[in-house]
């Protein structure tokens, strides 16, 4: 399969993730949709790495995975803190910055 097919799949997954961030209101699912978008970017990076035949894209895919792991830990920590303060688990209800 040519590289273009991989890029097309990556674009589709990215758009699905972006639509999910817009539609869903549970912050857990919003985090999952962010994962989708990061993974789409990873697929494009690895496709381009294959296209040029050097490993730089793969290294950056690994770095993106690290950033995604950081985002997950902080995001899930926020959700646990919200749950503990008995705040509603809904991004539309989280409008104020004050605790």
């Amino acid at each position, binding site marked *: 399969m040519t*590289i273009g097919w991989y890029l097309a799949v990556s674009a589709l997954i990215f*758009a699905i993730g972006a*639509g999910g961030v817009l539609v869903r209101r549970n912050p857990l699912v919003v985090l999952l949709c962010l994962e989708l978008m990061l993974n789409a970017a*990873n697929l494009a990076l690895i496709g381009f790495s294959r296209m*040029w035949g050097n490993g730089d894209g793969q290294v950056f895919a690994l*770095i993106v995975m690290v*950033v995604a792991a950081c985002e997950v830990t902080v995001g899930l920590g926020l959700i646990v803190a919200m749950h*503990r303060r008995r705040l509603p688990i809904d991004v539309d209800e989280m409008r104020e910055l004050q605790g």
Partner: protein
Amino acid sequence: MSAVIFFIAAIGAIAGAIGVIVLQNPFYSVLALVGHLISLAALFLLLRAEFVAAAQVVVYAGAVMVLYIFVVSYVGTDATPVGQSPGRAATLGAFACGAALVIELFIAVLGSGLQAIGTDGAPYKTGFGTPEAIGRLLLTRFLAPFEIASYLLLVAAIGAVTLARRRRGLDEGIEGDPPRISVMDLLRPRPLGTGTMAEAGGRVEVGEP
């Protein structure tokens, strides 16, 4: 043969992605994401990124998803939205945004002047994408991003512990005194109901000792 594997993995990845945003129960969304990640690892293998595919399955589909499962079962799957529903217009608007985004990306990527997009990529060199090659790159050319990534992980771990720590775990000291911790605290019997998940969730208040 590779075309067959590509289409199976691509359909799996896209179906998993749709499952994440369509399923109402967050638990099933996480499971759909696991399927999506494994399909994506197959695509990575087809692109000869063996180490990244292995890391994807072990780190992502293994460790990160376990974290998600823990938080979903802690928060509860019945986290139904409390406010009024955004309505059909907002959903259609989001769908239109997604469609516009995909068309724009198709035009930007496939319509670009890159000649190699229509090919199978550069000729395969032995050792491309193996752990050895990636490790060599990480420790020579990309040493600075590697170190910064490790610091980022440290900062994120500390931040998560600070955000989610138990606020009322210790006895309040005398008025104004910070609570003191000593080794003897380990030997004291703990009050009923403390040190459990119920207390961590705020359902049980720590009683007076």
